[in-house]
């Protein structure tokens, strides 16, 4: 079991790095969709298309670009994670009551000020929930990294399949499931706290 620890850490780091990058890109694209009206359809559509590409195909394509290794799986995870983050950011911003936007504009806030002072705080619980979904999904998708030479918990699972060893498969799969459950639990709690704290309730 002790030889699993570095794999768990590596797995987690790959996922965290990917989701962090995806959050930055996804929130930005969500804001862009919200700001520039004709772009919203295109951005959401592209993000949705990416989701439908089979994991193996996407990773293979990325491998051509980035070669073998962790970078490629991170790139793949970034792309998969975009969809829930963009969508939730966009929905959250769109859901802000018209009178609040009106008040913010009427007080003389510039567009970035409206965003930072009012709109992001208001839609934070939903944006956070998008990031949570992305994170939990990425934990299991990251297992595929083993096929393109990346580290993490994909390796023991892959070896298990090759050697027909259920025990080995489980030694990789159980930590993935546990991490997903723990993160989901913690982040759901945080999300509820945010919703409760967000004073419109």
């Amino acid at each position, binding site marked *: 079991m002790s030889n699993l620890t570095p794999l768990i850490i590596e797995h987690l780091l790959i996922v965290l790095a990917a989701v962090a990058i995806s959050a930055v890109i996804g929130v930005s694209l969500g804001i862009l969709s919200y700001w520039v009206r004709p772009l919203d359809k295109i951005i959401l559509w592209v993000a949705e298309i990416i989701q439908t590409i089979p994991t193996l195909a996407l990773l293979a394509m990325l491998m051509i670009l980035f070669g073998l290794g962790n970078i490629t799986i991170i790139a793949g995870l970034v792309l998969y994670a975009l969809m829930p983050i963009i969508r939730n950011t966009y929905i959250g911003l769109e859901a802000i009551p018209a*009178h609040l936007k009106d008040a913010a*504009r*009427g*007080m*003389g*806030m510039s567009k970035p000020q409206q965003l930072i002072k*009012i709109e992001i705080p*208001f839609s934070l619980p939903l944006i956070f929930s998008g990031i949570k979904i992305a994170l939990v999904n990425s934990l299991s998708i990251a297992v595929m990294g083993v096929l393109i030479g990346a580290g993490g918990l994909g390796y023991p699972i892959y070896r298990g399949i090759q050697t027909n060893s259920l025990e080995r498969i489980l030694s990789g799969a159980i930590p993935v499931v546990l991490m997903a459950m723990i993160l989901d639990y913690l982040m759901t709690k945080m999300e509820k706290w945010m919703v409760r704290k967000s*004073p419109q309730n």
Partner: protein
Amino acid sequence: MIEFENVSKSYGESKVLDRLNFRINPGEFVVLIGPSGCGKTTTLRTINRLIEPDGGKVFINGEDISKVNPVQLRRTIGYVIQQIGLFPNMTVEENIAVVPKLLKYPKEKWQPIVRELLELVGMPYKENAHKYPSELSGGQQQRIGVLRALAASPPIVLMDEPFGALDPITREALQEEVKRIQKKLKKTIVFVTHDMDEALRMADTIVFMSGGKILQMASPEELLQNPADPLISEFMGKHKGAPGASLTAGDFMKTRVLKASRKTQTLQSVELMRKRDVNSMIVVNDDDTYAGTVSLDTIKALGKAGKEIGDMMEDQAPIVNLNEDAHDTFEKLYTSPVGYVVVLNDDKTVAGLITKTSMAKAMGEALWGEMLS
């Protein structure tokens, strides 16, 4: 000063503002009123460029506002909306300080402003500054909405049905507060409502709009007396029960009047009038019916001590029946040589007296409800 010059706005085919021309003077309280969809909100929002007109110009203090950066412009114009629109993620203090902070006031400057403003509406800083809007009542929230608009001392404040969602008592309290604040801080206020009561109560000038046009721009009195359009009378009727229409002389009179028998002696009469601080009184016959009036001046001129006032009566005062229509009574009052009108019951006994003061008071009550003194 705010000036509209041929301001027009269309959405597709529909003309929402149709070549508006008007002027609002500094310190004036102007109320925009009219049927739903007539363009009140649109007019208001062209002043802070939340809406850009597609024809004409708006000037503030002679400056064409289309040449001013809209974000900068809005920081110099207060804005209050019906839905209040307090920022739920900010405390009361942060909400009030929003514009001062946008204008980069240091904390030492904006914090005293917040304190002072909260005092102004009777919400102590200590108890209220650190609450979130959701912890306040509707009336308190809208008070903060008003304070937020005032915080950076804008000379102009725009208010779009600010009290529409409040219960009548809170609404009246806030109307008074806003009127008081406006007078104290000498603001120019442009106020939208569809409530004629509110308009009559608050306005120096009422702008009555319909279909994107101004039907009449006048003082509340002028609007009441000479509505320029049937729609205006109808609008006032709907909200007011047509002031004047069903009122009679009896509604305007004061009943505490000084009466004396024609046998009363001069000195005694003078004493009575002095005590009541009036300079004339009504003289009645033995059966209590109206005989005439007598004034202090006449007694002084003609009277010797010990004479009866019945001998020096005048009959110049116009007489009306209790049920006389208010309008006719009004005219008699204004043409009366003695400045009052005597109101008689059907049996010719005296019911009361209408003076300009009692008339004004009664009209005030008809418009604004019971008055205190």
